[in-house]
């Protein structure tokens, strides 16, 4: 509790560092913030060509929105995931990137990883704004769902921050961590129904049936991935325009709180040794 108070006392510094990252990011570029859109758009284009056009993946149409546009369906899951993966990968390098500061100034170190998540979250907010505009143009009445979308964005950011707090410490001691996580993220995106609908996994799981005499199915294991729930909830809200499953939302919230609790615990135990370990 005292620790939380200390973190709260640094909120102005947190805001300033976040602004620094946001301002510094696209400095001296011609297109500025628009660059933040280029990456997801390029990925969307590639995935749409490969998976919708060549492999003919057909996700179910939005219910009740009636939308049936693969790239839009893809973006509803892809944008949250790219936020997650970018903030984990950048955030875990934040202490190393600011080694000079950590070794020479006393301040609450936790603001470094948190401000990275914050600045990437800002980009994500911008991307989601564009996505909402596209959804409205395509005829999905998404406006009433926006407050809930924002809430889910906060929960996902908390989940990402929790992981970042553990990984940033691990990365100071073992610099391999960042390469390892890079590979993990490449696998993770395919273990989450982002470019294919979960119905394909359901079908396979039903075919295989319960595993080894238990009543656990492939689907049960697949759905332990918190990102699967996040993507499902974001798609329900944005693409289908309906209330998500209560179970899914609970699963997201519990994972986020658990990740944050572990993250704070690990970070707090190790932050005093950071200046020497760098």
């Amino acid at each position: 509790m005292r620790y939380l108070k200390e973190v709260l006392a640094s909120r102005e510094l947190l805001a300033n560092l976040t602004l620094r990252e946001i301002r510094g990011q696209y400095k001296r570029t011609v297109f500025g913030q628009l660059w933040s859109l280029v990456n997801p758009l390029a990925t969307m284009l590639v995935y749409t060509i490969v998976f919708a056009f060549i492999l003919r993946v057909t996700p179910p149409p939005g219910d009740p929105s009636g939308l049936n546009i693969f790239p839009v369906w893809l973006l509803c899951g892809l944008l949250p995931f790219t936020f997650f993966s970018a903030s984990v990968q950048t955030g875990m390098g934040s202490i190393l990137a600011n080694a000079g500061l950590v070794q020479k100034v006393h301040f609450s170190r936790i603001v470094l990883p948190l401000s990275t998540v914050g600045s990437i979250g800002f980009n994500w907010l911008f991307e989601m704004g564009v996505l909402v505009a596209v959804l409205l143009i395509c005829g999905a009445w998404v406006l009433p769902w926006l407050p809930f979308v924002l809430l889910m964005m906060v929960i996902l950011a908390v989940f990402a921050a929790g992981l970042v707090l553990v990984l940033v410490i691990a990365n100071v001691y073992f610099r391999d961590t960042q390469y390892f996580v890079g590979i993990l993220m490449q696998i993770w995106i395919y273990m989450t129904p982002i470019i294919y609908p979960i119905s394909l996994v359901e079908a396979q799981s039903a075919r295989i049936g319960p595993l080894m005499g238990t009543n656990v199915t492939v689907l049960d294991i697949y759905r332990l991935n918190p990102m699967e729930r996040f993507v499902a909830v974001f798609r329900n809200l944005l693409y289908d325009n309906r209330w998500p499953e209560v179970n899914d939302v609970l699963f997201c919230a519990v994972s986020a709180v658990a990740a944050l609790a572990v993250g704070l615990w690990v970070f707090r135990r190790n932050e005093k040794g950071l200046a020497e370990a760098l």
Partner: protein
Amino acid sequence: MKVDGLSKSFRLYHERNQSLKSTIMRGRRSVHEDFWALKDISFEVPTGSTFGLIGSNGSGKSTLLKCLAKIYYPEKGTITSRGRLAALLEVGSGFHPELSGRDNVFLNGSILGMSKKEITRKFDEIVDFSGVEQFIDQPVKNYSSGMYVRLGFAIAINVDPDVLVVDEVLAVGDAEFQEKCRLKFVDFKEAGKTVILVSHSMSTVQDMCDHAAWLNHGELVTAGEATPTISAYLDSLSFGGNL
């Protein structure tokens, strides 16, 4: 401020290789030695004094300052201090090279614990003291190291600390700036504030400090009034005597 039985050790790795592979290969034993950079240091800094730390390179002065500034945490011993502490440990520490001097004043100020209102209020004073008005909107990567120190020092003193800790950085500034600092330290003293500084120039220490401590290989040799401490230090050097 009081330092009591302070000891700080570092792990010296024979082959520092921060990778998972080397850790696994090594097994559970990690190959390291403890190196005590500070050994059982105790002294007292009278409130309102200007305190000099002297000693040869590698004697642990910077390590001691970092312990005071809560950047390192000592293995043993305690440090008791009252009030706000500001530290200036290295040229340009905490500056972001791409940002302008102005942005850096705000950023650095908030890292040092000032609120935005406070910085806005003191902004003119900071810029004035640093003497870099002309370049305040230039990115600081174009500053000279003297300008870095001026701006950094100007911010640190405007944090309005009760204890100011300064490592060797002031030597980078020109004569005019050093004189400015000296006057500022006198102001600090009159306001009952404590300054702890490291310098290799014995004339500076003689000029600015009333108390001093001499460190040698991590051990405290003497601490007390500045003049006897400095002469004891100088006598110990083979070329002792010439300032």
